[in-house]
């Protein structure tokens, strides 16, 4: 289908009229309407007047409330564990889930402001999404040195986990898997 999109030559109407005369396109629906009721000013491209002095065209940046959460998420965790797939329009990245969880917890209002971020991380861990902190390469080098000390700490931490499980058996079993996961995830190089 032919068409002329060079917006600087004449107006849409003149371009379509010429193309029609040649016989390259068929008559569009709006052609007769435009011919009968043309606008006051023919829409020819005009170079915008150069602005002098301090007059600036203010285009407000597009910011959302979720951007604060997203900025913090990306600063701490880097790019998400899953690569982005921009071709799907209904794609939900890890960051989006994080943001939605964050907003849910915020609306519930039970957790304090400072702890909201960590709580969202733990909630995501519970649902199976593992988040790796940024700067893992530097951390891994240090971990090799600290591996021995960490091994000795592990049994102590496992003991505390066991004690907590025994204590909280009365409260309910829902919290224990989360606790166990977070306790195990925290000392591991992440």
């Amino acid at each position, binding site marked *: 289908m032919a068409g002329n999109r060079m917006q600087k030559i004449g107006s849409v109407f003149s371009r379509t009229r010429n193309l029609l005369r040649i016989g390259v396109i068929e008559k569009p629906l709006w052609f007769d309407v435009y011919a009968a009721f043309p606008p006051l000013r023919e829409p020819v491209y005009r170079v915008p007047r150069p602005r002098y002095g301090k007059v600036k065209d203010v285009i407000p940046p597009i910011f*959302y409330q*979720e951007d604060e959460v997203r*900025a913090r998420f990306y600063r701490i965790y880097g790019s998400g564990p899953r*690569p*982005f*797939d*921009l*071709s799907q329009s209904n794609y*939900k990245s890890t960051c*989006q889930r994080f943001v939605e969880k964050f907003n849910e917890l915020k609306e519930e209002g039970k957790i304090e402001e400072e702890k909201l971020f960590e709580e969202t991380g733990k909630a995501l861990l519970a649902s199976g999404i593992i988040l790796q902190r940024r700067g893992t390469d530097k951390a891994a080098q240090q971990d090799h040195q600290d591996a021995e000390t960490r091994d000795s700490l592990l049994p102590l931490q496992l003991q505390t986990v066991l004690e907590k499980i025994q204590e909280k058996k009365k409260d309910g079993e829902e919290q224990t898997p989360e606790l166990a996961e977070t306790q195990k995830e925290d000392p591991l190089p992440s």
Partner: protein
Amino acid sequence: ESFASMLRRSPLIQMGPAKDKIAVGRIFHVVEDDLYIDFGGKFHCVCKRPEVDGKKYQRGTQVRLRLLDLELTSRFLGATTDTTLLEADAVLLGLVERKQAKRKE
């Protein structure tokens, strides 16, 4: 649904700034050693065929990229507007590993 609400929830806005983000792309054109990869952004990116598994990169292959820039633009001295290359900038990381990838939404 309005455009504004769809934009707010679109994957492009979810990604935010494109620097150092991992994305999945598809090769749509090959010119000897140059691979033209489309990852869903405004422009495609062009990468060199890597030496490891070079033959596996054909038309339609899914690859992993680290995005650097969504559009390569810069303003030259004396110009009123930026000059654009109509290309994005990305580093090719490798093929998408199908067997390890879990089935997620």
